[in-house]
């Protein structure tokens, strides 16, 4: 019973900032008050009409779209290789593939900045996309790997023994069976890339910056609830994605096993 109360209190601590942001986003005045004195959508209007946010939103879509389109096939192939490739030192390969997760954002950001400057790529989005591919790859590999592990090779052997060509087996048996893992990988990659901030801060400028970087600049310079409105949109989108993922994939399997 006591444990239940403690857990509830801790979950409240985790959720509290989220609730406050959403409440503040409907605040009618620029000076924050809680509870709000009324309801207003003016900050949401502000988000949609602020030119720098519009530009950053386009950049976010381009960078995330490109990074996910690259990371998904690359990570899927790597997960297949890890499970099926009979690699020597498989654990070492796995650790290597997951390693971008543990590199400090400032170090990676500064490194990409120096590399981009040396290659003369500071004005383009290509370095941003390359960095995002590396940063979401660990999530893709991990999510797909779980699915590959649960895939019974007997099903593929059955298809092959019935005369299907290897490429046919891959397209008609392997890929469909990997669908839950691929779906999870897609969700994680999109969410992680859309929210990436530290590395992107170093390698983007006013023209190429993505939404979290534009939000950071706004928070540093202004105090009105416009950011609360934009944050609320982010939070609601993330909750829906995580809830959907849990509904269709049973996230406990992805995160609590091995």
């Amino acid at each position, binding site marked *: 019973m006591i444990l239940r109360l*403690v*857990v509830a209190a*801790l*979950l409240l601590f*985790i*959720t509290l*900032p*989220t609730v*406050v*942001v959403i409440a503040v986003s409907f605040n009618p005045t620029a000076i924050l008050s809680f509870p709000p004195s009324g309801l207003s959508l003016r900050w949401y209007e502000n988000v949609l009409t602020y030119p720098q946010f519009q530009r950053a939103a386009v950049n976010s879509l381009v960078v995330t779209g490109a990074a996910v389109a690259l990371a998904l096939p*690359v990570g899927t*192939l790597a997960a297949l*290789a890890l499970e*099926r*490739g*009979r*690699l020597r030192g498989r654990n070492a390969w796995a650790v290597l593939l997951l390693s*971008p997760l*543990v*590199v*400090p954002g*400032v*170090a*990676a950001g*500064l*490194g990409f900045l*120096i*590399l*981009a*400057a040396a290659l*003369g790529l500071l*004005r383009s989005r290509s370095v941003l996309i*390359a960095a995002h591919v*590396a940063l979401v790859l660990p999530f893709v590999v991990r999510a797909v790997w779980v699915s590959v592990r649960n895939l019974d090779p007997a099903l593929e*052997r059955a298809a092959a023994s019935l005369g299907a060509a*290897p490429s046919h087996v891959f397209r008609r048996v392997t890929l469909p069976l990997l669908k839950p893992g691929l779906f999870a990988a897609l969700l*994680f990659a999109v*969410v*992680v890339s*859309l*929210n990436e*901030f*530290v590395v992107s801060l*170093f390698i983007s400028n006013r023209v190429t910056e993505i939404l*979290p970087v534009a*939000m*950071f600049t706004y*928070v*540093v310079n202004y105090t009105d609830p416009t950011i*609360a409105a934009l*944050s609320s949109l982010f*939070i609601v989108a*993330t909750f829906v*994605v*995580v809830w959907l993922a*849990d509904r269709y994939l049973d*996230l406990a399997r992805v*995160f*609590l*096993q091995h």
Partner: protein
Amino acid sequence: MLATRDVKLALLPALVVLAVFAAALGSLFRWSFLEFVPGSLQTGGLTLANLRAVLAPQYLATIRDTVVLSALTTLLTLVAAYPVAYALARTPSRRVRSTILVLTLAPFFTGAIVRTYAWILVLGNTVITWPVPMLFTERGVLVGLVHFSMPTMILILAAALSHIDPVYERAATSLGASPARVFWRVTLPLSMPGIVSGGLIVFAWTLSAFPTPELLGGGKVKMIANVVKDLGALALTLALLAAVGRLTAGRAS
């Protein structure tokens, strides 16, 4: 089924991605040994002067503060995450497990900026009037850091706890141990691998924390990453100038 050799080759594209990442880290590492030439955009020869400069008193103080804050964060996160992880790993109800998991994962996937901005609102006196100042103090940064680390710690601890066979706990109980004793003598020692790996990951992550101290510290609380960013902003200007310089030089020739 594909041949084993083809499957091995499937690792190649990922290795290319990792190579780009390694190249970025490598160029950072190389830069740390290059001589800084004041008043010039070019770097000089190899030197250890940069590494010596890090040992200046103002940087040492930042490093000390960062280590202390990270250690405190790790300890508090462990204590706060353990009960949630225990509930997550042991609840028999799928609904409760899903609720805890979604509430834990949503902040994990909500970006650093959104979460830190949320804490600016909570720690500033808009929602709750705090008896002591919270925003722009080490206390406030600590709260933000613990909140930031909790989802990761909960997931790692829950994974470790779900590996423990409940048979051991039942055996201890049937031999007459009280629930508290079962926890201290059986559950806690068996979850040690999770505690160690979770603690290490959170400590290492917090050492390089950037947005939380930057926004919640308001320039008064500086951790290593904030100093790096301040210096990096200078490097950015230099790099941009260097790029422009190379462009114009290329046109001229």
